[in-house]
């Protein structure tokens, strides 16, 4: 008997009520919780970048390149939990070779590919091209070769070419905004379209996913901007930080309203599943939903950031509040994904019982692998920041893109 099956025996004792015999094994586990969390960060970071280019919010200009690089680092790591989770990862290519057009999951593969190739990579390349060419011309040895390859051996630095670059970036960003919406909205749709599961099946699911993604993305950029700036021994632009916190605040209000609407709607309609779902919340999801997602992840950050708006708070304290709030938001959004993915599988489709999920520490789908996958994007980001510096640094004549 394999380890996964052996782990199921103790779960039998934790079943409350009746579940279909096949439901004892929870199929979409921690790895599948991580996946929407990561793609959410991608969408959120990109939306923030688009605020600079499309909506001309000059205050958050310093985060533009950082957001794009963050989006890229998380996007390249995003397929990893999925591939690790597959029963047959070596057959994973089938999703691109023989996709079923009725399957949201299959179509998502193309949305992901489109977003990676035609939005994110293209935008970053056009934005950085001038610097890449300059660094290729100015560098030596391996570094020179690297930048030559990255710039695709391009060397046109004429005003006409630069103007084209800028126009390309603008166009791609405009296409990129609905693409980012599609990227994470689609993940919400993958869950929201499953009529068999009343916890998931909801028209609001893609919308809620998207807005919680934007919240988590902005919060992440808040954290990263502070960390990267301080690590590079630069000064934090407080206007930028305040604007980020403002956007975070307003997006959280929208997200809270949407989640509240979903809740009120369910309770008011009171469909057949309401009984088992209330049992689910009170018996299995109380801590993760009420305490962490709502209280710690939503209400406390909302109140503290509102506090910085109402009261005159010194810079130091504001930075601390923003930092802690952003961390709580990350925790809250991660737990939101947990509540959706795991929560949806903790109750039986017979509406008569609850089961349990036991995280393993080791193993391919265990806690250690999951933590490694969560840390990996930051490592990728560190590498990207070295190769593609977002701001002017000594020795790297970087032309900061102007928001025009």
């Amino acid at each position, binding site marked *: 008997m394999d380890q996964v099956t052996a782990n199921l025996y103790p779960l039998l004792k934790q079943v409350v009520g009746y579940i279909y015999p096949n439901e004892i094994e929870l199929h979409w586990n921690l790895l599948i919780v991580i996946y929407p969390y990561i793609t959410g960060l991608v969408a959120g970071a990109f939306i923030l970048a688009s605020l600079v280019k499309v909506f001309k919010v000059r205050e958050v200009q310093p985060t533009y390149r950082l957001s794009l690089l963050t989006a890229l680092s998380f996007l390249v790591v995003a397929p990893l939990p999925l591939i690790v989770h597959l029963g047959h990862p070596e057959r994973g290519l089938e999703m691109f070779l*023989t996709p*079923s057009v009725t399957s949201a999951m299959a179509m998502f593969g193309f949305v992901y590919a489109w977003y990676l190739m035609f939005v994110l990579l293209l935008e970053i390349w056009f934005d950085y091209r001038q610097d890449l060419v300059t660094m290729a011309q100015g560098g030596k040895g391996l570094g020179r070769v690297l930048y030559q390859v990255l710039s695709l051996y391009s060397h046109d630095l004429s005003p006409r070419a630069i103007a084209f670059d800028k126009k390309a970036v603008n166009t791609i960003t405009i296409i990129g905004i609905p693409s980012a919406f599609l990227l994470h909205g689609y993940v919400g749709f993958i869950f929201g379209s499953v009529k068999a599961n009343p916890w998931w099946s909801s028209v609001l699911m893609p919308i809620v996913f998207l807005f919680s993604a934007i919240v988590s993305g902005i919060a992440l950029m808040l954290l990263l901007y502070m960390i990267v700036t301080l690590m590079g021994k630069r000064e934090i632009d407080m206007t930028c930080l305040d604007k980020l916190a403002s956007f975070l605040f307003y997006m959280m209000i929208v997200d809270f309203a949407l989640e509240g609407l979903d809740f009120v709607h369910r309770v008011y309609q009171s469909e057949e599943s309401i009984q088992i779902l209330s049992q689910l919340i009170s018996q299995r999801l109380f801590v993760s939903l009420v305490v962490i997602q709502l209280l710690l992840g939503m209400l406390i950050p909302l109140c503290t950031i509102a506090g910085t708006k109402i009261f005159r708070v010194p810079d130091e304290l504001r930075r601390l509040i923003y930092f802690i709030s952003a961390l709580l938001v990350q925790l809250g959004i991660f737990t939101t994904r947990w509540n959706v993915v795991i929560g949806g599988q903790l109750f039986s489709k017979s509406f008569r019982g609850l089961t349990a999920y036991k995280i393993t520490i080791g193993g391919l789908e265990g806690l250690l692998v999951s933590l490694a996958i969560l840390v990996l994007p930051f490592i990728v980001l560190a590498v990207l920041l070295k190769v593609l510096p977002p701001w002017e640094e000594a020795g790297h004549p970087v032309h900061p893109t102007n928001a025009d």
Partner: protein
Amino acid sequence: MLKHAGTNFITRIWYGIPEQVRHLMVPCVVILGALVIAHHLFVPRDFGLYGHYRASSVLENAERPIKYAGSQACADCHGDIVTTKMTGYHKGVACESCHGPAAAHTEDPENVKPSIPRTRSHCLLCHEYLPSRPTGFPQVVSESHNPVKPCITCHQPHDPKPPHALKGCEACHTNIQRTIVLSHHASLECTVCHDTPKEHNVSPREYAPKKPQSREFCGKCHAQGAESSKEIPRVNMASHGGKYLCWECHYPHMPEAH
């Protein structure tokens, strides 16, 4: 000359595209090419023939080994047992229901033998008393019915007639018997209300017992002027319960339940 004229036109268009876009096209073409090659190499040839799936998968599913031969197969060699079974209570029970999968036995009858279940626990899988079992299905309470003794001592599995005639109705209607025994109707024999032909024991579905059809039947004991025991509750048959039949409100096997 054609080449010269053509190249001019193509060259004009080509160099009209910005340099960076021209360089971008290279990785694009490479990726596209890789996808086309992958499609040709890796998609199974029979995919999409009948629908969006690999056609040979249907055949793979259809060619799995068969383990249960089916009751027809047993008759070929064990005709005598089949004939015995055909007239008894187990006529609807497939041979392999008790003897397990026997397709291998039909392939190699001498060396591969199906199992012969001889233990009590095997028969009790079907015949142990469970209140959830439908009424009319023969059941025993194993603790009191010849405990420890193997069932086949008294019952021949291929023609499981009970060794002696059944005393009452509780062998097949145990749940009803256990219900009625707690009610005031406990003293009533089943046949008082249910006119039962004697063949019912042998062919239950063919010779079904009758059920009372009118209010007057219950009135024989429960009417105001009925000639029955003094403890029996009386009702005014004309007014009590309107036009409803008695058993549309009162469960005859537990009439006093409130």
